[in-house]
């Protein structure tokens, strides 16, 4: 069926609502055509990824819209920026880029977007509800919105996010529609120990494995503990959206559209079943570690020189900070290690009130807001960094040129305090 526009969409397209609305509508219509949507639908919120600076073209587009007087017409949050707007001194990159990157953030604020500067808008107080149609960009936010909140967003990229916010419209396609939200491929966990299932470090590894195999399909995971926490589903989804194009997953017994196996698959049978065993998980975990030779004797692996520890990708939640505070206790980060925890400014405000931010700073942790340590030059030159995030581990070698060790947050803290690599491999060995 060809795309049919209603009168108001048509009027916007011919310029009745001004040039900004016209350009935004033209982009949406071209995408709707390309993905064979037959109409557009209303969206009630947007999350913008285009505010992260990738070069002049992003600013050219924002200028084109903002100069023409564009304003968003739905509540619109902003993803991370290219540097910490609150603590700009943390930025070590090219000053000219910083000027343009800041200009980009200003243009989006001018259009009426809320300066939330977080990749985890689902951790804000106001968040989309079950069944609500929204237009979110940022792959980890998309997968969380669809899977954990049960809100409905396409896998939106840069540019269409702001166009949807300006027009309040999006193509009626993909995950907005019931039929496209059912599971395609089953991942069945077998032989995974309770100890591993109960460790936060397991979830990003599982997510990475699932994403790499799933590609663009919808995975259903069977065998996770019922009512897995939002933080764990967040790291699972973020990893799956980096290693694949996963925009939605179901975890039976945990996510809202997967109370049962039948719900997850919409009554159909899985197109494919993949059994996930401890060996598969161990090799996925090893793939994400570039800094140590996997084939050496485990006792010799401690030689990797860890100069930085980076946690908070996606942005840490209040709960994750609570766990970090507990783990660090009264110890201090070793002098040879930089420890960064990334989060949004809303979460920072909350942990300031609880006194946790000061406690962490006293222990030697630098809290980074508004951005993330793997997208922008914040780290001083180090050979290797450790992280608890599969997404960070995946992207950092290409983006900022460091070798990576993936570990649990317990490993990250132990390493930072000891000043050399400490990884407890036992839970993986007997998984």
């Amino acid at each position: 069926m060809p795309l049919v526009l209603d009168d108001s969409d048509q009027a916007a397209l011919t310029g009745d609502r001004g040039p900004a609305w016209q350009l935004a509508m033209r982009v949406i219509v071209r995408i709707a055509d390309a993905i064979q949507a037959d109409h557009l639908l209303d969206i009630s919120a947007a999350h913008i990824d285009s505010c992260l600076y990738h070069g002049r073209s992003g600013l050219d587009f924002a200028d084109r819209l903002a100069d023409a007087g564009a304003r968003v017409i739905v509540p619109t949050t902003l993803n991370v920026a290219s540097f910490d707007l609150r603590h700009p001194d943390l930025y070590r990159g090219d000053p000219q880029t910083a000027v343009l990157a800041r200009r980009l953030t200003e243009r989006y604020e001018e259009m009426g977007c809320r300066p939330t500067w977080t990749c985890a808008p689902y951790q804000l107080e106001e968040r989309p509800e079950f069944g609500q149609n929204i237009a979110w960009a940022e792959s980890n936010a998309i997968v969380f919105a669809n899977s954990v909140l049960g809100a409905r967003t396409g896998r939106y990229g840069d540019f269409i996010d702001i166009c949807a916010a300006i027009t309040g419209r999006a193509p009626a396609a993909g995950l907005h529609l019931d039929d496209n939200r059912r599971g395609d491929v089953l991942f069945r966990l077998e032989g995974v120990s309770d100890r591993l299932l109960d460790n936060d470090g397991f979830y990003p590894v599982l997510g990475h494995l699932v994403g790499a195999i799933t590609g663009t399909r919808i995975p259903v995971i069977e065998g996770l503990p019922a009512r897995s926490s939002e933080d764990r589903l967040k790291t699972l989804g973020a990893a799956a959206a980096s290693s694949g194009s996963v925009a939605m997953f179901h975890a039976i017994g945990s996510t809202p559209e997967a109370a049962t196996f039948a719900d997850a698959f919409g009554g159909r049978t899985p197109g494919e079943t993949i059994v996930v065993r401890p060996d598969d998980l161990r090799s996925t975990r090893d793939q994400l570690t570039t800094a140590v030779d996997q084939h050496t004797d485990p006792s010799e692996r401690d030689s990797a020189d860890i100069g930085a520890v980076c946690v908070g990708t996606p942005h840490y939640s209040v709960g994750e900070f609570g766990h970090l505070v507990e783990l660090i206790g009264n110890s201090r980060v070793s002098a040879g290690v930089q420890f960064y925890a990334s989060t949004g400014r809303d979460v920072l405000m909350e942990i300031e009130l609880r006194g946790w931010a000061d406690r962490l700073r006293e222990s030697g942790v630098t809290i980074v807001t508004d951005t993330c340590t793997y997208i922008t030059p914040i780290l001083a030159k180090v050979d290797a960094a450790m992280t608890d995030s599969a997404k960070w581990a995946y992207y950092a070698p290409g983006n900022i040129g460091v070798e990576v060790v993936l570990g649990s947050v317990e490993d990250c803290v132990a390493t930072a305090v000891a000043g050399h690599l400490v990884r407890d491999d036992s839970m993986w060995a007997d998984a």
Partner: protein
Amino acid sequence: MVPGEAAGPLLVLDEPLSFWGGLDSETGLIIDHHHPQSGESVTGTVLAMSAGRGSSSASSVLAEAIRLGMAPAAIVLLEPDEIIVLGSVVAEELYGITIPVVVVDESTFARLRSARSAKIDTTGRVTLAN
């Protein structure tokens, strides 16, 4: 998905590539360390990959590569990918440069591997040459 004409040597990727974190828009080189074709240049090629992958920012990186003249001449996909289409559409809106994006069926995609170059016409037809 984005109509236009283009021709160039074929670069068929063994795995999907996320342009963000995977492609340097200033050099046109693949920088994803995990990618089997890491280090190769996409500039001017007819870039074929089964699907898009990863970040929402891929549209921005593609648009920037197009602005800088470092983008592929065309992109051929097996599965539609709106994030890639967006990068191409917005670059066309801003700079008037068209990088066609087409989706082909499995048998056509399989034949790409044995061809050296490809031509795309305005109807989206892909012609191969050895």
